[in-house]
């Protein structure tokens, strides 16, 4: 009698943490032109960024096939009586839908499968999966864990600073950022998740200022449960951000990871971001959030 946790590779959870928390990852498919790769299976993050910067083709990512989920669920259903499958925003990818279809196929009275839409991406999703996995491990019942996952999904926040505008433009998917030109002004847009989408949040000039703005944004939140700092290619900016966050307010462990292709293709080299689960503090900020 136990609960299994499943996620997808776009949640960007490092391999050691997946293993430690018994989380099963379904790989996202990365396509460069005619070539397809399974993320983290036959394409590492470093290989991906190498190709991203040198390939003429702009990569696309596609959700795992329903069959991939069916395989994973079927295997897990042999040993577990419940599966919680925690995924990136249904507004950004078809992963959630693929998982739901598979859940209908595989789920039955012996194994209950629930698919959770985190309305986030990358470690914004990953942190939720990790938190739920830990709770299950320490004895939380499956139904409560599903509620918990949904509750956390409302509190997941990401802020990412982008170093070059080139990939946002090529990708063309990030609201409010695709039209930016800003080269001369050295604009480093900060993206955030709003209602399940990723959009432009601010347009600071220079990376240093972008990083301090991200730190200030994170510090604006209270009851932060979990935090992760990620980068695409340059780890030193991420280290600087992590240590500045630790110096200032957050005294929990800050996880470190790397953006995978799903978001990384749009961010391009040099991007750095923070993800956390936390509460919006003041009434004023809340008003702004609601008006958004």
């Amino acid at each position: 009698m136990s609960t299994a946790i499943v996620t997808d590779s776009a949640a960007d959870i490092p391999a050691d943490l997946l293993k430690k928390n018994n989380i099963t990852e379904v790989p996202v498919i990365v396509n460069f032109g005619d070539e397809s790769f399974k993320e983290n299976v036959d394409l590492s993050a470093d290989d991906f960024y190498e190709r991203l910067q040198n390939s003429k083709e702009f990569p696309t990512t596609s959700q795992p096939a329903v069959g991939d989920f069916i395989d994973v669920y079927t295997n897990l259903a042999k040993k577990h009586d419940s599966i919680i499958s925690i995924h990136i925003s249904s507004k950004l990818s078809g992963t959630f839908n693929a998982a739901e279809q598979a859940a209908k196929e595989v789920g039955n009275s012996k194994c209950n499968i629930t698919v959770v839409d985190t309305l986030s991406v990358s470690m914004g999703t990953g942190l939720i999966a990790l938190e739920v996995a830990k709770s299950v491990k320490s004895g939380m019942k499956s139904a409560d864990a599903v509620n918990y996952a949904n509750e956390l999904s409302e509190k997941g926040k990401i802020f990412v600073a982008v170093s070059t505008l080139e990939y946002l433009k090529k990708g063309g998917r990030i609201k409010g950022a695709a039209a930016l030109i800003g080269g001369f002004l050295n604009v480093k847009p900060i993206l955030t998740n709003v209602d399940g989408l990723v959009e432009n949040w601010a347009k600071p000039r220079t990376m240093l200022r972008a990083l301090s703005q991200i730190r200030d944004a994170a510090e604006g939140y209270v009851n932060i449960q979990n935090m992760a700092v990620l980068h695409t290619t340059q780890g030193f900016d991420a280290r600087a951000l992590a240590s500045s966050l630790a110096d200032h307010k957050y005294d929990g462990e800050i996880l470190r990871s790397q953006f995978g292709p799903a978001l990384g293709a749009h961010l391009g080299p040099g991007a750095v971001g923070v993800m956390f689960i936390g509460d919006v503090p003041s009434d004023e900020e809340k008003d702004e959030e609601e008006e958004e």
Partner: protein
Amino acid sequence: MNPKIGLEPNELIDLIEVFCQTLEEHRESINSLNVFPVPDGDTGTNMFFTIKGIRDYISEDTKSLDLASMVKLLSKWALLSARGNSGLLIAQLFKGLAFALNDDDLLGPKQFVKALIKTTEFAYESMPNPQEGTILTVLKESANASDKSLSKNPDDLIYIWKIANDIAKKTVDDTPNQMELLKKAGVVDAGGYGLSLMLEASFNCLFRDQEGNIIFSIPSDKSLYIPEVIKHKPIEKEFLQSVEDESWGFCTSFVIQGSSINIDHVKDDLNKKGKSLVVTGDTELLKIHIHVENPDEIIKYSQKFGDISHEDIQNMNLQTSEFNHSQNEEIQVVEVALIVFAREPILRQRFREITPDHLEFIEVSEDSSPSVQDILDSIENSKGKNVILLPNHKDLIEICNQALLLTSKNSSQIPTKNFIEGISSVLAFTSGKSYDINIKSMNRAIEDIKTCSVKVAVKTLEYNGLNIEEGDYIGFIENNLIAKNSDKNEVLKKIISNIDIDQKLISIYAGNNIIMDDAFDLLNQLQLQFPKSEFDLIESGQYDSEYFIGIE
């Protein structure tokens, strides 16, 4: 007793013509006073265009109105035509007149004095920080003096008007004693001088012939009072004169640089290509001003005389925003439009790079600022359901306020005093967010920006112990002149070493005369010297400074 102890409505209209011609005649001399130590140089032009705007509204119908209705209309037109702060003060004059002539049918001594008193009140109220030693003081002193003389000669308009005029001139001469800045620059106040000219010129037109008709004499350039300081005029008079011409295609100006250019040949040649040609300069550097249908063609054509630079092309019809006349396509409505005041094409490009879909521009030209009507039209014609104005100049903030009062469209302004604040403010704009939230964050974005600049001195003067020669580079921290040198980069370094830039971002905006390669060398030097600060260099092409520096 002479039944005509005041001016009749149609005579008031004639006075507006007198004002208009007087200001036209004297606009460069007024402009030339506006030179501390770098010329803003537009007071006379603004005053002239404001009065001309009123004059252009006047029709035969206006002349047949009763006095009270007429001055109400004049007051409205004055506001719509007002350009710059001095134009707004002229608008107060007509507002004061409208107030004083509530139900009188003549402009008599009593009404004249009342008008001056009300104008003074309105004028002081209209300025956020009333400063003595300006047109305000001139108004106040004239109003007080004529008020005192009214009890002695209650029926003598000519006498009262003369008192106002005499005191105005005296006060203008005294303005350097009231404002340190004027004294150091060796000038009197430009706006105050403009007002005294209006009073003097109109005073000369109060006399009547035997039939009781007013004898109009439009004073010539020389006949009116001219303060000592402007008898030798410093700037290109010929060039400034030409701009008031009626709109006709594009007002195009540019510089030709070459060697032994035949000026007469250029003149003859270009004269056939357009109207209002003005050519000033010498055989190596010529400034051309011409009105043509196709500006690109004339610029291309002129390349045969030398290298072309400093192109400035203004659509004479300022009401149409850049956006509107650039496309015939269906106008796409946006939730919030930003109307940005910017003169230089490169600078407009920098703004476009931040948020291309929401920008509209008001092109501020070299020698006249947009009128209330221009701004109002831009707001009304904007593709934005809501409109946010960014004046980018301290002198345009008040005029934007006036335009905002007149529009029914949901609109407001971020009071950006310069383009650096403008850029920061536009960077804080987020297209998906509401109008109110954007206004809040755009205002917040300009709270902590300090600006410095390196400019060219156009006047020789002594200031703060610095002996500044014309052509020197001078450095300002905010508005304080703190450095001068014959090398602009040295001035910039001096500025940087005089302010606390620790942990700050220093954005150096390179003006039109800067060679970018040199500027990048300078940037690298500064970055090495001040590793705790972050330096950035942006080509912005502004005409009025070499470097404009934002510290945030």
